[in-house]
């Protein structure tokens, strides 16, 4: 009896194996006779929203768009592995802004300058914002005027705009007892901060470890750019810069006194004013900190602020409206330091680029989809479903501002965004910066030691390329 059962099990298993080797027809609900095109992105809300739009496009135009969504940690390698093989399963990819240099110099994405000229309302976009997702060589900071379509080279379309902002507990701020105590201590009212120094004061004020409450939650993780993108805005707001784009020099820039001071402040925030265990923080963790009522301030990407308003996850209220009474938002207030005033928010978001390895027909079909995507009707759906468009006219429209609780701030932030470099060797450069900043945030090295180390390593990376005048 047992032997027969074993034999039955074996035969079933062998049949399964046979199916496996031949291939299983119908295992995947085939998007039947319709033409199917893939866009490579990664798993998060906006990509899911794009898939919803893709399904709608299938109904309207008869071409099925599928958004490939691997985990964030695999996004970069899944795209570049296929580029390396000169054969991509996707016809287009949504690329992170810093990938542009590598993608362009390795001939993975075709130029789109003329298509942009003819098909997009370029004047409706902030030129710096547009260029960040599209232009290589990178548009130099301080460049004035519109998009340089005559002389520049553009490879991407501004698909999804993102930036960092602050969320704060406005109910704690409004509490009269807090107001009184804060005024007594700092001699100015507890309010939406008007400077970065004020943010530090507020974070210090609210930190009471014995009550399990802290002032600040921010990204610190060693993964990808979490820690780096926390350090960068602070460095920029204190007037610092991380390199000289003209010469490629980093020494004296990323470890300048301004940047050192900024990182020292960040270290203070992460070591003294953040809940323990913050060293592994990224978006999900800081959202949890806020949802569980642990922190007064949260610094994070606005793409995912919807996570703050989920009654199933939040202890702040049983409905969205209840939660909205307790959470407010503000943009980076800027700072005047050592005689210079600066105000920046870090740029996030991604741009849409074609795969150079897709067929011309597929590329054209993708451009048709992009054109459909940029029509005002679809852009409206894009933000109503929860994503963020890059079009300034839309960003300042009443409908957009009323769509989400944080959109009033969103419509202002894209005038002050700044991105870091996007040269082909960005990946090792970023890893050095990110991991070393994390080491400083978690208390393993001082801010000065960390930034000196970054300068040294980044200099060696850039020198090895032979392309920068600072090292010749």
């Amino acid at each position: 009896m047992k032997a027969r059962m074993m034999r039955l099990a074996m035969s079933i298993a062998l049949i399964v194996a046979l199916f496996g080797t031949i291939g299983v027809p119908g295992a995947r609900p085939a998007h039947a006779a319709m033409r199917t095109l893939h866009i490579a992105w990664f798993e998060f809300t906006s990509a899911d929203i794009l898939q919803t739009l893709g399904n709608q496009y299938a109904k309207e135009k008869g071409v099925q768009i599928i958004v490939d969504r691997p985990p964030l940690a695999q996004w970069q390698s899944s795209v570049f592995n296929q580029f390396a093989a000169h054969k991509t399963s996707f016809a287009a990819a949504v690329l992170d802004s810093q990938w542009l240099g590598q993608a362009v110099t390795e001939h993975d994405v075709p130029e789109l300058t003329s298509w942009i000229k003819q098909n997009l309302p370029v004047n409706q976009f902030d030129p710096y914002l547009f260029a960040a997702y599209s232009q290589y060589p990178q548009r130099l900071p301080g460049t004035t005027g519109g998009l340089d379509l005559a002389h520049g080279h553009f490879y991407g379309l501004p698909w999804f705009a993102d930036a960092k902002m602050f969320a704060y507990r406005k109910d704690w701020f409004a509490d009269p007892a807090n107001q009184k105590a804060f005024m007594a201590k700092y001699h100015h009212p507890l309010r939406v901060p008007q400077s970065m120094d004020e943010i530090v004061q507020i974070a210090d004020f609210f930190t009471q470890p014995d009550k399990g409450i802290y002032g600040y939650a921010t990204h610190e993780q060693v993964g990808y750019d979490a820690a780096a993108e926390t350090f960068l805005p602070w460095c920029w707001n204190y007037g610092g810069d991380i390199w000289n784009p003209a010469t490629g020099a980093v020494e004296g820039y990323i470890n300048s006194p301004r940047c050192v001071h900024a990182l020292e402040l960040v270290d203070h925030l992460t070591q003294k004013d953040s809940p323990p265990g913050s060293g592994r923080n990224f978006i999900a963790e800081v959202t949890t900190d806020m949802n569980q009522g642990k922190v007064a301030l949260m610094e994070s990407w606005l793409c995912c602020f919807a996570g703050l308003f989920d009654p199933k996850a939040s202890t702040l209220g049983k409905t969205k409206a209840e939660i909205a009474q307790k959470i407010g938002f503000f943009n980076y207030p800027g700072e005047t330091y050592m005689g210079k005033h600066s105000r920046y928010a870090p740029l996030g978001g991604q741009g849409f680029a074609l795969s150079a390895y897709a067929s011309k027909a597929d590329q054209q079909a993708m451009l048709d989809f992009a054109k459909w995507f940029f029509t005002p009707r679809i852009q409206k759906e894009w933000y109503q479903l929860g994503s963020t468009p890059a079009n300034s006219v839309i960003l300042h429209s009443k409908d957009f501002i009323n769509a989400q609780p944080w959109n009033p701030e969103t419509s202002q932030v894209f005038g002050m965004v700044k991105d870091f470099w996007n040269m082909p060797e960005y990946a090792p450069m970023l890893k050095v910066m990110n991991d070393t900043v994390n080491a400083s945030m978690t208390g393993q090295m001082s801010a000065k030691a960390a930034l000196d180390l970054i300068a040294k390593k980044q200099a060696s990376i850039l020198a090895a390329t032979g392309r920068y005048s600072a090292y010749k």
Partner: protein
Amino acid sequence: MATATPSASVEGLRRQRRRPWLTDRRMAFLFIAPSVILLLAISIFPLIWSVYLSFTRYKVTGIEAPVWVGLSNYHTILTNNDLYDDWHIFQVTAVIVFCAVTLEFLLGFGLALILVRKFPGRGLILTLMLTPMMLAPVIVGLFWRFMLDATFGVVNYMQSAWLHLPRVDYLDQPNTAIGSLIVADVWMWTPFMLLISVAGLSAIPRYLTEAALVDRASAWFRFRQITLPLVWPLLLIALIFRTIDAIKLFDLAFTLTGGGPGQSTLTVSYLLFTKAFNDYDTGSSSALAYIILIMVIALANIYIRNLNKVASA
């Protein structure tokens, strides 16, 4: 199929003579060849290509052809002139592998000695104890991260609320982060050693232990002279595989610590992944792969020499 009755033996002999082509040699070849061919095609061929790449400066995503640089990649890594602190990474890996495998061996074998006796509920306990190794390492890493968190984790809650010990930020300090990796790995793979030990201990012929009991041998004597020698070959095979796998530790570190804080929990496999899929420094990552391979081969040789000695004894 013919049954082995005496009247069939002549028939069987005739059958043997009618099928001379399946000689022993042919059979050996046919049995072994498929495995070896598959291994050659999928494991070895890529290996050879990456050996070549290890002597070049090359980016697989780039448009430039590989440039021969001889032993330069190896030199950079072995003299610690790399972007990464290679010596420190090798050290950390060695610590993790040694501590984890030793603990897994002691715990696994120790538990097996207890679980090899029959008692009510033993089957259930044994099956349950095997579940940790059935989970995917990425999931194990994620959940240990969840449990060890200093603010939200259940481990810190238990130690502070029940044991009145201070909370420890396990994942944000290098030493405790390394310890966390070891604990998570031990949690995951002790069941492996446990299972192999139980299988090996169960297979010891009862008559040997019974004979020793009749001779009034002490428990220690029985253990040392009968149990251990008989189960040692199997344990050694398990140790070889476990050590090799521990050196390849990546998924767990990826989700538990991400290599952090800083780069203090980067293992050699994680560094390999970073060089290959973050920096796309194909030449250097290939060189690192071969350095790792040579070390592992050396280590495995030691184990196997011991195995052959024991087997021939």
